């Protein structure tokens, strides 16, 4: 019976260790800052060159798509704050749906280039406010 208990304890420890290692690996691979535009500028120093996600509202009229070069440019700002810092974003690829709707917020995933002062996004996630349900205050 004793040997059995040792085996059980041992195997539980082994499973936990393997699992923790996987979680550790996953966090290293997949975790990144999720920031508002102004937070990005505040945290530029401590972030280094890591990948980040920036959440912001598209400045109306800032969307520009160059079809021949397949390049999309637009400017992000903090949601509902008029005088927030502006972030210029560049993305290689066609614009996603609903980009030019008013009040659209978007999450851009990518890197901030300090010299060129531009955010190079390699993934865009558009969040449409009316996608499934209107907000309470709109209803």
């Amino acid at each position, binding site marked *: 019976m004793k040997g059995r208990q040792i085996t059980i304890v041992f195997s539980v420890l082994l499973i936990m260790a393997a699992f923790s290692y996987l979680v550790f690996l996953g966090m290293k691979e*997949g975790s990144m800052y999720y920031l508002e535009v102004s937070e990005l500028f505040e945290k530029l120093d401590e972030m280094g060159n890591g990948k980040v996600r920036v959440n912001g509202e598209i400045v109306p009229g800032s969307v520009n798509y160059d079809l021949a070069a*397949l390049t999309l440019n637009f400017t992000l700002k903090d949601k509902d704050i008029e005088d927030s810092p502006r972030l210029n974003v560049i993305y290689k690829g066609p614009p996603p*749906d609903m980009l030019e709707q008013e009040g659209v917020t978007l*999450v851009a*995933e990518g890197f901030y280039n300090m010299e060129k002062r531009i955010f190079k996004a390699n993934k865009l996630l558009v969040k449409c406010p009316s*996608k499934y349900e209107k*907000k309470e205050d709109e209803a």
Partner: protein
Amino acid sequence: MIDFGKYSLLFSLILSILVLIGLIIGIRKKDGRFIEMSYRGTKGIFAFMTFACSFLVYAFIMDDFRIEYVASYSEKALPIFYKITGLWAGQKGSLLFWGWLLSLFTFITVQRDEHRVNSLYLPYTLFFLNLTSMFFLVLVNFVTPPFELMAVFPADGNGLNPLLQNPGMVFHPPTLYLGYVGFTVPFAFAMAALVMEDLGEWWIKKTRTWILFSWVCLTLGIIFGGWWAYKELGWGGVWGWDPVENSSFMPWLTATAFLHSVIIQEKRRMLKIWNVSLILLTFSLCIFGTFITRSGIISSVHAFGQSPVGFVFLGFLILVLAAGIYLIWTRYEKLKEQNPRIEAFLSRESSFLYNNIILVGICFATFWGTIFPLISEAVKGVKISVGPPFFNTINAPLFLLLILLMGVCPLLGWRKTSSKGILINCLLPFSLTALSLPVLYISGIRSFMPAFFYSFSVFVITTMLREFYLGTKAGVKNSEKGWLLSFWTLVTRNRRKYGGFIIHIGMVFIVLGLAGYGYFQYKEDAVLNIGQEVTIKNYRLKYLDLTSRTKWNFEGVGARIEVYDSGAFKGYLRPEKRFYKKRENQPTTEVAIMDGIAEDLYLILGDWDRRSGSITLTVVINPLISWIWIGTGVVMFGTFWAVLPKRRRQEDVGLLEKEIILRLKGMEIE
């Protein structure tokens, strides 16, 4: 007239309060009349809820825009089937639909019980079912009333969001809700078993059909969600580890664990408390998922409305968990295992145990990744989100182990298997798996993980087919029937076992598809002028022209593309952007897909130049993705094979009831 819906919801709530009172009095005074009255009450609730739902659907069909909910989600020009599905297009309607399903399931649970007159457990079960019903009835009456009127009656409605105007909309929400609501029944039985301090196999036998039914609905709901995203959202994928997706995946994981661990309880009478905990967890995760999606506390691509309803669900979740944990806690001493332990590390029951550990592990990892932004914000003051790489890094190896187990399990016997026996059993599957590796290498699968996924799949399929073969062979030997007849006898006599094997084969197909698109998806953007061609991998695509068409409530601009595969003409594809009349500034992508067994060609029209007609075309090649849908079909077939046609003879049902009554008699009722 318009108030009918509102009042029938109010009557339902009043009736459910009466049912509750009747149950409490009936159980306390041991008076069957009160309990019988409560049973009848469930009929009334079901009738009123059915009426309320039909009334709302009727309002949608008749374009009754006086009702705020109808005006928000419909319009005159909307095709009729989207009008009907308006019932679950928004929050208010979907909660009403949820409540209706719950009243239906409660009604069926009571009606199905032939011995309900003397039943000892049914009052308790109904008690928990009815409490859940009451929660939803309070919601639809006071928090999210679906029959609220507009202040000013509009001539036409707002229209349904274009993204919801897709066949996925017809299937995805109801199947998901069927799954969620279905788990309420086994949950209620489990709670009743806890209250009565008897966690024997009876509640599992009684709820087996419910469990499988809910499980298959949840599976379908999740897959339909992926299918919808694939066809409608135009990003070329089916699954993105978004919080909303995760919240439907977590209960699926614990439910799958539960499906397996109850088999050990039935065979070996072990894991009683574990099973009750799993069903409690599954039900809680269904509620938790609703909380996440409705409260908006975790940012998601699926922007559901952020409304206080989410926090009402949080309150309910805390209540359910507190009650469940209290019941388990107070009964723990009495229910501790007196039964045999697992004897060997290599036995069938231990393989079920590993299966449970892995599934719960995946669930925990998914949970952790989903709520991590909240934790990091609370602890470090910064939101840190975890993306798909986190989930893939952890879950892919765990899934791999799970697949391996699927293959190993049938090779092991119950209790103990001799090492020699295992070796003999493994010989064929292992050698085929080993053989598959060079074949995979030659066919271009050269990285680690996918090679594992595919060779393990070969392993599972071989062991499954081997089971069918050995069973049939034994049948031929024993009964001297022909092969075909023996096979038929085998699979019809042991529907449950072979249904399970079929489900596993389906699961392997789904994994094949997921791995194919996950590891080998190819994506390229191209800019094309009219008449220009582009060659991408084995495809040659020629852009013919840009045309527009008008249908129902939208105008679609599409590019006609001529498709050649390895030189052979395959047909035309027309990826499109739609402009719905109600939302002209919100173009939506309508992808064009040429699907095949080996791979899908998936075209997205990005943007176009109005003068020259040149377009941006995104070309996605998704290998094996069709196998997800094929596998789902196989899983469904397997589940129905395991449950539906099994017509229990009347005596069997009677025996089970008698057994339960005998077990529970002599027990003190509080």
